[in-house]
């Protein structure tokens, strides 16, 4: 944490929104992308990441600087992400099946469309398809697995850190990560060649 960041944090703690926004600029990309991969929808990612910022703003008075700012922020984010999933499930109650079905239907296409705005040409088309497929595959993971995978792969957290966040053993984290990668691979249609798939599948069940 640099001095200027410390300074920004101190000012943000007195309710200075400008300072907080300045602080947020340094981490907004990382947080947004995490939310994006987790939600797989831009709108949701925006809402969710802004919610995290809001929570962080409200709680910054309690930030003691014992850990890094991003570590602290990530804790808020993880809680928010998991709660978000829960709220969504609770709130939409009986509509859940409907929504899930809708999500499955639209997530790929919606993303492809949006991505096409940012990219162009033949290359862009491939990229769109790729993004759509990956997002779809991510959607096949459970929220917890998805988050663990993202935290491990994108954020580079250690098994121990993740296990602390999720309140389970490192072994369980390891196992979940393995399953997540295998499932992604499966949904992305990546061939394992002559791999004996059966033991793995059996292992997965166990």
């Amino acid at each position, binding site marked *: 944490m640099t001095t200027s960041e410390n300074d920004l944090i101190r000012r943000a703690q007195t*309710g200075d929104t400008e300072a907080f926004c300045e602080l947020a600029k340094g981490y*907004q990309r990382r947080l947004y992308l995490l939310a994006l991969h987790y939600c797989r929808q831009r709108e949701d990612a925006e809402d969710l990441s802004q919610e995290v*910022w809001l929570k962080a703003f409200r709680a910054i008075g309690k930030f003691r600087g014992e850990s890094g700012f991003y570590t602290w922020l990530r804790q808020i984010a993880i809680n928010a992400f998991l709660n978000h999933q829960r709220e969504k499930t609770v709130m939409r109650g009986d509509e859940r099946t409907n929504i899930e079905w809708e999500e499955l239907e639209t997530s790929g296409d919606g993303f492809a469309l949006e991505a096409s705005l940012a990219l162009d040409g033949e290359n862009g088309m491939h990229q769109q398809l790729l993004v759509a497929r990956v997002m779809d595959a991510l959607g096949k993971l459970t929220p917890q697995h998805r988050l663990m995978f993202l935290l491990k792969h994108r954020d580079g957290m250690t098994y121990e850190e993740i296990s602390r966040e999720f309140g389970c053993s490192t072994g369980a984290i390891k196992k979940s990560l393995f399953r997540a*990668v295998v499932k992604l691979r499966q949904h992305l249609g990546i061939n394992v060649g002559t791999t*004996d798939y059966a033991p793995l599948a059996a292992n997965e069940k166990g």
Partner: protein
Amino acid sequence: MHDCQQTQERLVDLLFNELDAGHTSPLLAEAEDCQACREQYQSMVETLQVFDRAAEAASPAGDFWTGYSERLHAMLIQETQTHTFNNPVALAPRGEYQLTMLEDEGLTHRLLAGLRNVARDSRLTWPEFKRDPFGFSKRTATGYGLLAWRFFSQRNVAVAVSTAFVVMLSVVGSVIALEHLRAKQDALAAVGEEQLELVQMIDTEIPPEQKEPEKGAAGMANGKGGGSKPKQEKPQGGGGGGRQEQLPASFGKLPPAVLAPQILPPNPHPPTVAKPNLPVTPTIDADPVLFPPDNRPLPYGDPKSRATEISAGPGTGSGIGTGNQGGVGSGDGGGFGPGRGGNTGGGDRREGGGGAGGGGGGGGEDYNRTFNPKEVTRKAVITSKPEPGFTEEARKNNVTGLVKLRLVLSSSGSVTNISVVKGLPDGLTEKAIAAARQIRFNPAQKDGRTVSQWITIEYNFNIY
């Protein structure tokens, strides 16, 4: 012994760099040796690579972040405002004094921003309201109720608000009570007062302070006087009256003066009969020469008085003043001033003469003295001036020169009081005096009256 399952489980560690440097190479070598393990590992790496490529592609373009920052900023501002409203101390770190300064913008800016917010809010909520008015109202009411409840359930807030209420209420109450009390007292005081009725408004202007009358003015019994009789004579007499009022006679003008018994004595009060069939003008019994007509818009009264309150004075027999008959002043009769029987000037009635040479106390000026030529309004005009002639002695002695005489051209037309200023010998001065006595002239005038005038004349004795 190579166990594919065990190795593959550990491949995750390899994949996510969770192995110590010492363990990485052996595991990598083991995976290389086994084709299944190698393919497994390669496919996993490829999965991650694909994911990374997709993640890269899904990352929004640069301008997205500017908008994102702005949206975040707007949200935080809104949060600050609502949050500060609800709980101003929440933002401040514990134990530190925090000045709550929402914005340091001007009032107009804040008002505009507020209006914009309201407009935006109503735009956002209007469709919702249209769709479900009752539900929306209910939700809004519940939301605000909850907000209010949360506000009041904060520590000390309810106590503070109710205290403020009680204080304000008691202040307002005491103000109203005091006002009520005062109104009551006013009403009581009004009942106690005499019920006065406005009878009449005097619209004529009465000077509040009157100057002291001159000593020689009419009615002062002081002076040599005059009157309408042809011969100079001091007028005498006076009058006075009053209507037994408590106040002294008020200032006012005299009614027209007529040398005849009064028909109607003057009265400072307005006539009781507004339009009499036979109107009679009030008069005083005095020489009209001494009292020029007075056209000032004043009620009748005593010109010598300084009182402004309309009153006929404490005297009796109607009229004005302290006297006993219908005149004006302290006397006894229909005239003006001290004295008896009418007219003015003091003493018993006597009509004056010699023109308007002064009122009942004479005019301010004594017109019987001899004036200098500069003092008169019209100098005496000499109509004939006989030559003195020489004496024999003078002719013999060749006396020549100037004789200067000072004399009075009196108001009666004679030359009097001759004195020699410069004389000549041999009887020439006597000649000059004799000649001067034969001067004929029109007397000088002052203020319309014939007066005596000093004059210096020169006789030049020359031999030709």
